[in-house]
């Protein structure tokens, strides 16, 4: 698992320090000169972080993972660190370069530059943490940076979003801090190698809850860690804070994917042994994420605004990612983390093209329709299922265990839906249809290949997996059933108005109707002061 030979290097310090210093520099310059063009320092700091990641990757490839500090190391650069740091730095660099051109000089530009650098610094700290305290420090720094990014003194929509975010993230952070304090009190500052070593110690301690049951400290800590991860990823039962962040400019929405929403996965993977060892915690994780996935996927279909739909779908995607950890497929979770972060930030940056693209597709693309004889329709179904089968078999052959299930089923469903979408848009040309289906299959297999490669690279840094609390096939079956049912039901609001009304309100702050009078319930049939003429 972990190689005994490590390499001490200050590169790790550069990795973390560069964006932090950049954030401070941006703040100072912004304070001195409001009208100067902000973002130069931020870009430089982020580029330095990306460069360090690349250098560390080279070191890792030729030699051994890097560490910095004492025993246990403060910082370390194993495969997980490098993947997360690489993705986060790339996204942050892109977004900050974008923001520098996109935002007019002023307080918003300064806020984005400084906040973005701080978010990256926090993420890098979390990803490269060798100890629990370092991880908690990075986590708190990220939360602070997010709140700073969202906060705006004058705009009410931003204020509401900030309040919601503070509530949600604050509760998660509180859970994390309590867990850290408990662990520190019991076993000191452990190395983040899955926390398997200390799990045993924690199991032995227990305390009683309201004199009724005995709960072991391990259960408490694992539960709190799970709650922290859930809150960060905008999962139930925490309030959905992601949709409100759409009130901030586009670069901020994209930045949130550079390690803010994904940090939960890193936390859980670094404490994987502890968390998977506690059945209750894993069950909580699985239930919360499955529920979130079902609700968020539905809510995404019920959103009419492009940015809102992207934000809500992020909740669902994060649910899928955390579910992968619950079923014992951390490699799948990490590959999903990386791919999705790049995808979502790219889509946010390009959201302005949403309507133009939709119109062009409406004009030129053949409408998706299922027509023809029963035999023909059956053939389409068979072909789509065939693509799914091919992909599924390939996944089963190249991956194993829960990874094979999560990745395989997800890719198989995607391949089938892609083939179906293509087949139901007849272009009138056999050759194009066949090429299209082949293309879908090839792309899906290529994605599988990428995931296999990534998993192989990550193998060395992942702790071995114990028994998962939830069976992967079961979880996926629930998801698939819910997804299919939802997509059929939600095709139009009138099909399921109650569900639609519920989902359409996800993520919105409750209506405020300040009135000096307390609301009083009206009993049905009360006499109105003025008879309301009911028009027939």
């Amino acid at each position, binding site marked *: 698992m972990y190689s005994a030979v490590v390499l001490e290097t200050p590169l790790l310090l550069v990795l973390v320090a560069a964006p932090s210093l950049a954030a401070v520099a941006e703040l100072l310059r912004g304070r001195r000169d409001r009208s100067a063009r902000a973002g130069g320092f931020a870009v430089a700091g982020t580029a330095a972080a990306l460069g360090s990641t690349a250098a560390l990757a080279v070191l890792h490839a030729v030699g051994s993972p890097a560490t910095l500090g004492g025993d246990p190391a403060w910082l370390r650069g194993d495969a997980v660190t490098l993947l997360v740091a690489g993705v986060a730095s*790339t996204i942050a660099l*892109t977004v900050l370069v*974008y923001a520098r*051109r996109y935002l*007019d000089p002023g307080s918003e530009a300064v806020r984005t530059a400084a906040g973005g650098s701080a978010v990256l610094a926090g993420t890098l700290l979390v990803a490269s943490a060798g100890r629990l305290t370092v991880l908690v420090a990075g986590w708190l720094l990220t939360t602070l940076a997010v709140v700073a990014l969202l906060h705006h003194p004058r705009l009410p929509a931003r204020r509401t979003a900030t309040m919601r975010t503070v509530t949600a993230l604050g509760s998660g952070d509180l859970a994390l801090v309590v867990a850290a304090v408990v662990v520190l009190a019991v076993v000191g500052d452990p190395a983040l190698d899955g926390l398997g070593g200390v799990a045993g110690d924690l199991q032995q301690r227990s305390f009683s809850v309201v004199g009724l049951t005995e709960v072991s400290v391990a259960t408490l800590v694992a539960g709190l860690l799970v709650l922290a991860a859930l809150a960060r990823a905008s999962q139930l039962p925490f309030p959905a804070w992601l949709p409100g962040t*759409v*009130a*901030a400019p586009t670069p901020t929405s994209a930045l949130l994917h550079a390690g803010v929403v994904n940090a939960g996965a890193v936390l859980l993977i670094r404490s994987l042994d502890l968390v998977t060892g506690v059945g209750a915690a894993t069950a909580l994780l699985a239930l919360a994420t499955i529920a979130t996935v079902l609700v968020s996927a*539905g809510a*995404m279909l019920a959103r*009419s*605004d492009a940015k809102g739909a992207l934000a809500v779908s992020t909740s*669902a995607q994060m649910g899928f990612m955390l579910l992968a950890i619950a079923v014992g497929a951390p490699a799948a979770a990490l590959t*999903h983390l990386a791919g*999705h972060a*790049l*995808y*979502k*930030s790219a889509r946010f940056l390009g*959201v*302005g*093209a*949403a*309507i133009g693209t939709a119109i*062009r*597709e409406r*004009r*030129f*693309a*053949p409408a*998706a329709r299922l027509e023809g004889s029963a035999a023909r329709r059956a053939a389409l179904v068979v072909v789509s299922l065939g693509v799914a089968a091919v992909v599924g078999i390939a996944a089963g052959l190249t991956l194993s265990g829960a990874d094979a299930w999560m990745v395989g089923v997800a*890719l198989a469903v995607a391949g*089938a839906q892609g083939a179906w*979408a293509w087949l139901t*848009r007849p272009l009138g040309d056999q050759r*194009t249809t066949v090429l*299209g289906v082949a293309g879908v299959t090839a792309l*899906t297999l290529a*994605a599988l290949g990428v995931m296999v490669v990534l998993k192989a690279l990550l193998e060395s840094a992942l702790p071995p997996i114990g028994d998962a609390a939830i069976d992967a096939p079961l979880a996926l079956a629930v998801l698939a059933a819910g997804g*299919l049912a939802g997509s059929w039901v939600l095709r*139009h*609001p*009138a099909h399921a108005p109650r569900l639609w*009304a519920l989902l359409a*309100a996800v993520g*919105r702050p409750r*209506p405020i*109707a*300040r*009135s*000096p009078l307390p609301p009083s319930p*009206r009993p*049905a049939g009360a006499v109105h*002061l*003025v008879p*309301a*003429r*009911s*028009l*027939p």
Partner: protein
Amino acid sequence: MTLVESSPSGLSVAGTDRAALRGRLQVDVARAARLVAPLWPIERFIAVNPMQGLTDRGFDGATATASRWLGVAGLPGPGDARRALADGRLTRADLAAAVAEVVPDVAGMDPLGGPSHAVHPAELVVADLLSAADPARVAAPRTVLEAFDADHGSSYAASVDDEVTRWLAILVEHHHGPGRGAGSLGAWPTWLALARHDRRLRRLAGRDVRQRLEGLPRRADDAVLRALDVLGVGDARWTDELRGQVARRSGWAGFARWSDEWAAADDPAPRLALLDLLAVGLTCDALVYEQLRGRVVPTARPAAPIADRDAVDPDRITGVLRATGLDPDDADLRVAAAAVLGRCSPRQRGLAVLAALENTFRASLLQGLGAGSGRPAPATTASHGSPAAQVVCCIDVRSEGLRRHLEAVGPYETVGFAGFFAAAMRFRPAGSSESIASAPALLQPEIEVREAEVADGRDLARRRRTSAATGASFEDVAHGPAAMYALAEGAGWVLGPMAVGRTLAPGAASRADAPVGALCVEGDGAVGYTLAERALVAETALRTMGLTSGFAPIVVLCGHGATTTANPHAASLDCGACGGNRGAANARAAAAVLNDPAVRAELAARGIAVPAATWFVAAEHDTTTDRVRLFAQEPPAVHAEALRRLEADLARAGERNAAERLAALPAGAGRAGAPASTRARRRSADWAQTRPEWGLAGNAAFLVAPRSLSTGVDLGGRVFLHSYDPAGDVEGRALETILTAPMVVAHWINMQYYGSTVDPQRWGAGDKTLHNPVAGVGVLEGVGGDLRAGLPWQSVAGFDGPRHEPVRLCTVVVAPQGRVEGIIERNPILQELFDGAWVHLVVVEPGSETWRRRLPGGSWVAVAASDSVDGRAVVTPSAGGVASTEDGSSATREVRS
């Protein structure tokens, strides 16, 4: 305890009464709808006058009405005056003269101070104006619920607005136009079904809201009537309440107005009926009000919401007296100053600023065109030389720069004509299942022109369909609840690097020109024009632009379009004359028509002899990159050499124009050393660029004249240029066409930019960085709220402030005054525009040196030479870029002989 006002009396169940009520409601709804302008779907953004429904009240009345109902200022404020002063566009003398013009009372008052230091009262007002803050936008209560909120300090109306706009977005997205959207009920029944289960409505309107919703009528108009009844709105005040409802969601109401009044029956865009919008809004208001009024004592609505005068407090008087050099402690002076300041309301101050800006611009424009220089206005467009080519450009202000540079680099003549080249049509590109209306918004074209499916041996239709099907399949998978996980993961590895590339190196990948197929303009009148129609198109085009003789060997019909990336308002930069689309299709259609030998024979029969050697070629000017693409498929060999030279000259002219434009854009310098065309191309391909070009910002005048009047004059890209031949248009038909169509379009564009500059929150679309595309028809700002109409702030302003100068259009016509007066008399629309002070009119007789301005009411006043601006000229506001100062008085004028 007072009860609510009496409900409509005599509500009987009889059918005829019900029908009468519904009829009355329709009338009142139509009246209320005029408060907002129609809002086109954003992919074919049409610039509209925000006060389009109020034009019959005149500019003053319309801005006052808009101010009362929408809470807009409607006029430039002290901030604009201060900025203009700092830029050098205005002097205090200009402002004082404007104050004297707008407030005659003040002009007639005695000067203050002694004989040694006499201060005219107008100067006092100017000093006060310059030190004032921008007037606060007061939102007066407009509806019953807002009045309740004002009385009790609650915020029910704002919460209801949040909910209603959220519902409207859902309803619009799922209530498509006819023939699409399977299983969709009307918007109102859908809302009833959804609202029944909405917990948020329960929070606002009480727990029994579900029962109350059951009892609501199934027809939207009945629901409106019932809600008006519940709110206690009497018959006479229906219009007011409806206006208030419209004002509270002016964006969606504007879309509803487009949907009801302007959308073609087979338009595939989503729809929203205004009656449905009002039904939802009023019902929510009524539901909330019902549960409130039982508990509180309703009070009378405040009578006059906004005072039209502001308080004249002692500090103000002191400041004003000090600023004008008078003694602030002199009691008599203080009394006199208070009298002066009390005469001038905030509205009048705004009108004065507007008048000052307009007067200065007009004076500098006329001076640049030669007024007061002793030079007679040209009488005809007949060319004096033998140009190698004539280039017909759209009247768009951006053509002005290209035309100026093109005339400077080679022997070319340029002509201005509306960008649809009289070929109003529905254009169907190869592979498309819809046809696009490619004509000014005022026209409803019926003839469809199709693009050939095969071009240069490539199957265009198949390529486009395949590419679109790929995109659509991708979106299907991305939204599939079970399939989106793997897609996000896999696609991230492709989209991520693409995003990095696009951000770090925009425009690195040079886009090849998209292939186009030939247009089939011949046909039976449904698809393709008949011969008679083609001849009409050709004749109209040539006669209206005054090009009936003296044809050059090559005549270029140059439409325009803009290339931007990830820009929801992309269509706002495209050609307005082509319905918010690119102009290439119309140019190609017109060129095909004019090259047709049969059409030429018809033209000869009608008196226009086009030489056989003359060849019409279509082109498109990309206004963001300043590249002109010629659609010269199979040119005649005799023109090959000239065409090659023309292409080279167009590239050179484009390069110069791009350099000039980029200097005025914020951060337009880009990487040093790169040629302007590369920098412009990079800017257009940059998805992080909120200002790829300035578009029509700065537009201020409409010139109807032979080109020789303005050749060589640097008009700064602020003037719409339409060519006109006074000598050849004896009956005035061409002039009438120009004034009643292109000028109205220019007026709409001018007022759209005016509104978005003067009131960016109500009439403009707000901050572009917060824009959130919604329902496929428009944008929201941020997470919710009303649909945004108008232009985003970044389109009218730079880093330091507005780039567009909020002035009304100044039309300058070279024609006999009698001809113009006759045309105005025959056309009510022109009477509305000119008498209502929406558009200024200046006329100069051909061959004369007397320029006259028409005042509202029909009288004419001479434009005196002393109105000149002493060397200050057509200066565009500096906003983060280098201020482009064009000194009209010393502009080079090349007199073509």
